């Protein structure tokens, strides 16, 4: 419904959205927002603050009635103002920044011309017992009358002339304002109960006092300014001089039909032009205007002046009258003098001064002065106390329009002198507002109330908005118009008007047309919603977690990528939208230039990353390699086998869990990887195909064409990070990420303030989610004493027993707006349901899920004593919980509820056949009712939680998890296999940032040992485990003796280790070492002249197809340390891809600056290490030099693969899976990175995947945080939809236990009976396999009993 289109931020401006929109499909909360910016300048510029943007938007859509309704909210004269308004609105139109203003006034006329006001409903008016008399039926008086009548006041208008309208009728001529329009709009007012008494002159026919005496509680004086000012020059008393007001009035009263001879009008306003043009139409031979200023100072609009000149009216600018020439008392001509204009004075006006001796005369038969008017206040009478000004206007309070006489208000020309219709309308609005308040006894302001200043937070003018000329308004041919009073401006074509309206830039966002309010039958959007304002709320909190996220790098400032210039160069984020099923092309990959499917796309890596020259982001963004591969693979899936994706990269960084396998698979699937930075991009031709120029690693220059280029843009901290840092007083690092350190990765520099996600540094989703859980955990530690204190438990009424009752089923059939009701015949479904057995009540609802319907259902259940409920609506998968809660509120057990899915599985999929859809809906309701009649109450099932934890593994991850749990008050046991705590970290000297790891490990061990809530079992292993969430039992064997530990949650932190190798002479030569062995031997380092590091020893191979993630950083750190200690030592790192992700890239850069030499090798051409007589020789093929190098080395240090420990046993005990490389498998790689699929068990540290210390720590805290969600409660609710064994029928065959995937059925010895099956309800997932497989039918599945299912089947058949 919304007429305003705006570029969709979510679709990266590749598509549009409305001003009322859902931010994105999965947005939470799942609701719509309305974009409200500052009020558009047109509305602000209009004296009456008409909602211009709103009615223009309606005209754009051809909704003229709606346009008029919007206009009528602010004034009653759309057709009149659509013709005569001087359109100040257009002066502020921002379309002028593109071309010219929107022709707003004309669009108003178009709307008015298409609507008969009688077709508009008169709103319901609540009468108020007060009367208002309005004196004068001009625009001010009638507008005031209109709004007062709408407010419920009884309004009488008194008009001295024979017809209503004031200057609109007796001043403005018909060629500008046809009387049919005027009459229609005035007559329309009578429908609002306004009485208009014409031919009734106040002061003559009835006095002011009499009005009051007759019951007028307030009086509004709006008599206008009808008395023309005198020229004050000699001779103006002559016959043939008629002031313009009198002239026009006489014409319009029908008293004057003919003008002979030559007419001269004096003045530069509307009435001057009107006078001249009317005189011409009445037969004047010539009509002249003399005006003492120049064309640009004329008050009448330029188009008006132009039309007058076309008609032959001669305008003498810079000419002032001096004397009227008489001949026998009759006008013969006028003597004039030329003037010139002074420089603008302090008011900005240029004053005309006569030029001495420039006098001349013009012959004339008639002279019509039109130099101004003033009110005629004689009607007030001598006794009136109403004050006047020196200008002979009525004196009022400018804000409230009150005169000094209580109850008497005045407005319009009578207080300002002659002005425009729209200004009079404003006076009418104002008068109505304050008279209304006055009559209700409100206190009125004494002073002028300034309006809020105009804001400028508008929709930006689109950069490439095409120029579209303003609509031309056709006019009647001059010859056809100068002899009559036909309307000069002709009606414009409807199509032109709509195109003109479409030129509007929608400055204010939402145009407040309120079409969404009318469209929302659920009344979720209301006028009040629209009026909602930003509120500032204070919340008292104990800690704060900052997660402001990232900003994608903007490549527009880099000239070599041509992102803005070439249509087919898009960013990776834009490409994500192109790939998305919910995106601008619904998932079809189309290139922007011609919407054709691309056959070749190039991804360019490291745009805005690893680049200190152009982007100033010298860090690696860490995620782009992987997402580029993903995009290329998905694009290939979408486009097809023939699609050729190419990724241009520097180092391929697929260091995440299972990422390397994805990379290898992509290569096999035809993604081409080229190690090169593209030098330049040019557009080949009009089609938008792109020429890429690049150099291969071997030095060859290549030109290649691609249909599209995707820029893999890096990450920057979001703009709000800086503001948040200031607000919270926390430190940022040099790249403006929140500063943290390796040992406390989610702590900011301020206690109690934590950070997670990219705000802290570049990272992917799993790492962000881990940090978020870690931050929640550490925030929870500080708040553990307050846990649960602010929780409000929802209370339900006591459950009523339905035992022994016959079914009394209530059926609620939902229309879902038109989603169901628009297809299926809902009333006939209702009638059908009434006759089904057991049904006691049926009704239909517009939206069954709406709040008010829910309340109604509760009431009906109680009133009709219903004991089973069927809702025929959408899907139980989304709505069953809601309705179950509803019936609980009525005292019913939640399982006495059934849904018939007549939307998703009926009306939506059979919308093309209403009859069949209705039949199916009836059948589905019948099935639901049959089943419902057999439904039974099922009591809730909860299990107590043992609020303790077990941590398997005593490394950094295990210890961190244990401390994090124990600090929250959950006693924790650590089970450590070896004789000491510390794990793999015991071998590490320093972190890559230089922090002392041994000191950290020692302090951690000390904390664990001293903690009252942590017990440590060294030399211990888990040898058996059973149980379920909240109630695990783990058997631990310590030096041969076993004990059983009960715990509610478990954290698996069994670690990993560096592999041994026999490659590169390791184990054969003492000069070949691995990992930290070399750095721990200072003697070797001191004596060495040349050291070679070899990377990927055993990683990224067929045997171990994964990256060990930490080795590049470790070797580079060691190399940097060696170079810093002894710059003359030659240090070489032989690598396959340097994976110095995130800010580690800066360390890599530093190593190169220090002279560390990096040489790439490939897996099929590995380096060769040989012993020589003085040391070692390392041979490696350098791909850049394209030759074999031989390096003499004193020592070779190997970065061997990190391998999982023996996790198989633990995996089997707890039924938690490991991947092919024996690392534990989390429940979801991205969204649940520390959870297992089994509730209550969590994973962290190297047991999950190789990772550096900071990531292990945050994952360990995350695991503890997740465990706390279980341990934080004394019991947990589990689904009571479980199987039940009938021990009498059971024969103990054990088939059920065999088929149960959840170990929820066991066989137990029953005395005297042998083995019998037994359920473990807390483990049961309710699948019902056991029930289906039991040959004895001894197992029933609650809520899905055989007879309940069969009832549905029988009803369906």
């Amino acid at each position, binding site marked *: 419904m919304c007429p305003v289109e705006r570029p969709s931020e979510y679709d990266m401006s590749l598509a549009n959205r409305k001003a009322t929109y859902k931010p994105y499909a999965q947005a939470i909360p799942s609701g719509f927002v309305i974009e409200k910016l500052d009020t558009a300048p047109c509305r602000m510029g209009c004296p009456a603050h008409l909602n211009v943007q709103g009615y223009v938007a309606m005209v754009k859509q051809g909704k003229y009635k709606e346009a008029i309704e919007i206009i009528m909210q602010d004034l009653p004269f759309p057709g009149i103002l659509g013709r005569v308004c001087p359109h100040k609105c257009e002066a502020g139109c921002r379309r002028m920044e593109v071309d010219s203003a929107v022709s707003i006034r004309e669009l108003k006329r178009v709307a008015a011309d298409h609507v008969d006001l009688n077709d508009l409903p008169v709103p319901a008016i609540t009468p108020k017992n007060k009367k208002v008399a309005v004196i004068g039926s001009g625009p001010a008086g009638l507008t005031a009358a209109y709004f007062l009548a709408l407010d419920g006041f009884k309004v009488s208008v008194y008009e001295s002339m024979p017809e209503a309208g004031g200057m609109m009728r007796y001043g403005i001529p018909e060629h500008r304002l046809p009387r049919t329009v005027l009459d229609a709009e005035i007559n329309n007012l009578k429908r609002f109960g306004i009485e208009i008494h014409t031919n009734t002159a106040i002061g003559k026919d009835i006095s002011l006092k009499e009005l009051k005496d007759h019951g007028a509680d307030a009086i509004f004086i709006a008599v206008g300014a009808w008395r023309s000012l005198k020229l004050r020059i000699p001779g103006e008393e002559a016959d043939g001089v008629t002031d313009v007001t009198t002239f026009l009035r006489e014409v319009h009263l029908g008293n004057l039909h003919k003008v002979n001879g030559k007419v001269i009008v004096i003045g530069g306003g509307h009435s001057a032009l009107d006078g001249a043009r009317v005189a011409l139409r009445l037969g004047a031979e010539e009509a002249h205007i003399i005006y003492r200023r120049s064309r640009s100072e004329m008050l009448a609009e330029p188009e008006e002046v132009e039309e007058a000149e076309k008609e032959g009216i001669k305008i003498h600018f810079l000419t002032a009258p001096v004397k009227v020439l008489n001949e026998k008392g009759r006008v013969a001509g006028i003597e004039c003098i030329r003037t010139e204009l002074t420089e603008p004075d302090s008011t900005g006006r240029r004053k005309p001064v006569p030029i001495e001796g420039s006098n001349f005369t013009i012959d004339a038969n008639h002279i019509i002065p039109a130099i101004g008017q003033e009110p005629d206040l004689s009607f007030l009478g001598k006794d009136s106390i109403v004050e006047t000004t020196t200008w002979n206007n009525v004196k009022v309070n400018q804000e409230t329009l009150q005169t000094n006489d209580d109850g008497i208000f005045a407005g319009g020309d009578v207080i300002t002198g002659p002005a425009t219709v729209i200004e009079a309308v404003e006076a009418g609005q104002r008068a109505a507002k304050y008279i209304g308040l006055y009559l209700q006894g409100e206190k009125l302001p004494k002073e002028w109330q300034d309006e809020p200043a105009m804001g400028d937070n508008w929709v930006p003018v689109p950069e490439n908005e095409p120029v579209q000329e303003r609509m031309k308004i056709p006019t009647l041919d001059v010859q056809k118009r100068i002899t009559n009073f036909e309307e000069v401006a002709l009606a414009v074509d409807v199509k032109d008007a709509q195109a003109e309206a479409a030129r509007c830039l929608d400055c204010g966002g939402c145009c407040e047309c309120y079409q969404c309010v009318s469209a929302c039958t659920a009344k979720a959007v209301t006028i009040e919603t629209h009026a909602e304002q930003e509120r500032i709320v204070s919340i008292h909190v104990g800690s704060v977690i900052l997660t402001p996220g990232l900003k994608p790098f903007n490549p527009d400032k880099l000239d070599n990528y041509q992102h803005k210039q070439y249509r087919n160069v898009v960013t990776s984020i834009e490409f994500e939208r192109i790939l998305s099923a919910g995106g601008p092309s619904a998932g079809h990959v189309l290139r922007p230039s011609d919407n054709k499917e691309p056959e070749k796309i190039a991804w360019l890596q490291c745009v805005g990353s690893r680049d200190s020259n152009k982007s100033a982001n010298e860090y690696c963004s860490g995620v782009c390699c992987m997402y580029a591969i993903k995009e290329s693979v998905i694009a290939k899936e979408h486009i097809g086998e023939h699609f050729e994706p190419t990724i241009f990269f520097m180092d391929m960084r697929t260091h995440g869990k299972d990422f390397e396998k994805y990379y290898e698979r992509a290569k096999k699937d035809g993604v081409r990887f080229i190690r090169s930075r593209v030098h330049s991009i040019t557009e080949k031709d009009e089609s938008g195909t792109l020429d890429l120029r690049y150099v291969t690693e071997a030095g060859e220059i290549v030109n290649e064409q691609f249909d599209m280029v995707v820029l893999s843009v890096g990450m920057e901290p979001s703009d709000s990070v800086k503001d948040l840092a200031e607000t919270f007083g926390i430190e940022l690092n040099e790249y403006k990420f929140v500063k943290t350190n390796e040992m406390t990765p989610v702590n900011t520099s301020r206690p109690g303030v934590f950070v997670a996600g990219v705000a802290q540094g570049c990272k992917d989703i799993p790492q962000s989610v881990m940090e978020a859980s870690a931050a929640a955990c550490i925030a929870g530690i500080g708040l553990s004493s307050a846990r649960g204190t602010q929780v409000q438990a929802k209370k339900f009424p006591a459950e009523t027993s339905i035992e022994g009752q016959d079914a009394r089923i209530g059926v609620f059939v939902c229309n879902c707006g038109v989603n169901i009701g628009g297809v299926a015949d809902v009333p006939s479904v209702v009638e059908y349901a009434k006759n089904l057995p057991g049904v006691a009540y049926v009704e239909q609802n517009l939206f069954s899920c709406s709040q008010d319907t829910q309340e109604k259902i509760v009431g009906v259940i109680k009133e009709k004593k219903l004991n089973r409920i069927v809702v025929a609506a959408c899907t139980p998968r989304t709505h069953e919980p809601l309705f179950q809660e509803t019936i609980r509120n009525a005292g019913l057990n939640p399982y006495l509820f059934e849904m018939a899915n007549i939307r998703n599985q009926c009306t939506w999929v059979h919308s093309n056949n209403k009859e069949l859809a209705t039949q199916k809906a009836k*059948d589905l309701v019948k099935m639901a009712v049959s089943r419902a009649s057999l439904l039974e109450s099922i009591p809730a099932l909860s299990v107590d939680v043992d609020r303790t934890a077990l941590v398997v593994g005593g490394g950094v991850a295990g210890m961190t998890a244990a401390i994090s749990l124990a600090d929250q008050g959950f006693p924790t046991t650590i089970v450590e296999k070896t004789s000491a705590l510390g794990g793999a970290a015991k071998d590490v000297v320093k972190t890559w940032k230089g922090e002392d790891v041994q000191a950290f490990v020692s302090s951690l061990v000390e904390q664990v040992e001293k903690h009252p809530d942590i017990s440590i079992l060294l030399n211990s292993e888990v040898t058996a485990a059973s149980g379920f969430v909240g109630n695990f039992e783990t058997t631990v064997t310590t030096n041969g003796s076993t004990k059983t530990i009960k715990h509610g949650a478990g954290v698996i932190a069994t670690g990993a280790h560096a592999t041994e190798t026999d490659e590169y002479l390791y184990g054969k030569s003492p000069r070949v070492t691995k990992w930290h062995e070399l750095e721990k031997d200072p003697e070797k380092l001191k004596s060495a002249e040349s050291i070679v590091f070899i990377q990927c020893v055993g990683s990224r191979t067929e045997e171990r197809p994964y990256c060990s993630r930490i080795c590049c950083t470790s070797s580079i750190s060691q190399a940097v340390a060696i170079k810093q200690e002894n710059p003359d030592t030659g240090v070489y790192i032989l690598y396959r891809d340097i994976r110095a992700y995130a800010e580690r890239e800066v360390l890599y850069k530093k190593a190169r600056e220090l002279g560390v030499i990096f040489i790439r090798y490939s897996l099929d051409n590995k380096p060769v290490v040989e012993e020589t007589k003085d040391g070692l020789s390392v041979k490696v093929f350098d791909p850049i030099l394209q030759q074999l190098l031989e390096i003499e080395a004193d020592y070779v240090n190997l970065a061997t693969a990190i391998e999982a420990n023996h996790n198989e046993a633990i995996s089997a005990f707890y039924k938690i899976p490991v991947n092919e490389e024996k690392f534990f498998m989390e429940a979801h790689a991205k969204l649940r990175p520390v959870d297992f699929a089994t509730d209550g068990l969590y994973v962290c540290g190297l047991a999950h995947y190789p990772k550096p210390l900071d990531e292990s720590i945050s994952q360990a805290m995350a695991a503890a945080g997740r465990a706390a969600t279980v341990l934080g409660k004394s019991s947990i609710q589990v689904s009571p939809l479980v199987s039940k064994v009938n021990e009498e029928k059971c024969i103990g065959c054990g088939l059920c236990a065999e088929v149960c995937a959840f170990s929820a059925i066991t066989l137990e010895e029953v005395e005297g009976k042998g083995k019998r099956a037994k359920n473990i309800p807390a483990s049961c997932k309710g*699948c019902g396999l056991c029930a289906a*497989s039991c040959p004895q039918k001894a197992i029933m599945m609650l809520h899905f009993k055989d007879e309940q*299912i069969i009832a549905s089947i029988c009803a369906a*058949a």
Partner: protein
Amino acid sequence: MAEFEPKIVAFLCNWCAYAGADLAGVSRMQYPSNLRTVRVMCSGRVDPSFVVKALKEGCDGVLVAG
């Protein structure tokens, strides 16, 4: 005589096939209206006797999806 229109009972697993049928609706796909769905928590719940029962009651086809 009108063309033969089969009556088909479908047992759909709540977690996959039933969700898929919902999604078909969300996507406004159109298919013949002959299906009558019985939701189960797992296709493994479908006892063979249910299939026999459906056919005996006069259904022309049974679909088990999960």
